[in-house]
């Protein structure tokens, strides 16, 4: 009994050390979105390419959707762009853009210059849809399933490693669900 009491400080120290060590490898920036499992918010905005053309949720394709939040003022979006162009060739999902708090002319020029990977981009100049999505910066990428439910939110640059590890498995899962008719 005495020996156990004597060891208590050591045990406490080890536990605390373990806890703090674990804390070192946690990324405080990676937060779960509050919207996972909820429907994509309703919106009525205009198409980036054409200010007189309205877009709503009904304009999304029925299958799996990737929604990428981007802007010309965002340097990381430029880094991520070539990979998005590659992704656009995959027909397992449709890629859409939300042009977040940007200038319409600049954004259209960007798409002309760097290629347009999106089916269409939603022009969200005051960030209203961004707010409803809990966006706090760009780039951010959301995965929407066939029911219009948000399944994943990723904040940061989309690159092959992240894609392989986090997105592909989820897309496979959703495809399985679709095949089962869920």
């Amino acid at each position, binding site marked *: 009994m005495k020996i156990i009491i004597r060891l208590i400080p050591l045990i406490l120290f080890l536990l605390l050390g373990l806890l703090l060590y674990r804390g070192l490898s946690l990324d*405080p*920036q990676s*937060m*779960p*979105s*509050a*919207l996972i499992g909820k429907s994509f918010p309703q919106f009525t905005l205009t198409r980036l390419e054409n200010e007189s053309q309205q877009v709503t949720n009904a304009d999304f394709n029925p299958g799996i959707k990737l929604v990428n939040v981007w802007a010309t003022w965002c340097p990381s979006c430029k880094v991520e762009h070539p990979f998005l162009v590659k992704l656009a060739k995959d027909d397992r999902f449709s890629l859409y853009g939300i042009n977040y*708090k940007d200038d319409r002319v600049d954004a259209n020029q960007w798409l002309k210059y760097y290629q347009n990977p999106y089916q269409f981009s939603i022009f969200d100049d005051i*960030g209203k849809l961004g*707010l*409803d*999505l*809990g966006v*706090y*910066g760009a780039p951010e990428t959301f995965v929407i399933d066939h029911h219009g439910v948000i399944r994943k939110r990723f904040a940061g640059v989309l690159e092959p490693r992240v894609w392989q590890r986090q997105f592909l498995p989820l897309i496979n899962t959703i495809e399985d669900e679709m095949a089962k008719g869920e």
Partner: protein
Amino acid sequence: MKTNNLVNILTKNSKALMVLLSSAMIFFATFSISAGPIDTYTFPDEVTKKRFASLTYELRCPKCQNQNLADSNSPISQDLRKEVYDMLIDGRTDTEIMDFMVQRYGEFVLYRPRVSSITYILWFGPIVFILIGAYVVFLFTRRKDTEPEHLSAEQKQQLKSILKD
């Protein structure tokens, strides 16, 4: 030449220099620097103004995680402050505004987390630790029975008389 004289006096009399310097330091320290972002919101009444201040004080900036909305200059904080302002003018209650933020940004945006099953440890952990600590202190400081058991009645009597002296 005059300034030279002053320098002479000061260098010779280091005490005077010290007094001068420290009074200057104390004087300048009284200017507080407030570097908060400046918005030009106008409020219909003092109560709304206070509510705005307390809401932006208790809501956390999602991007710059160790600042509240009132402190942060990031674009997202500016937007959220605007949103809080619009909702206040709209006549929404504080709870509605908090709910609006939590629905979009998660429990994370509340600097004062709600009491729920996942925050029990946050709210009640400290109390539990204090109780444990108090118990440990109690265990260690408890006076052990001072009267030795193995003494005979006679010896006890003797001990008492010694202690009395």
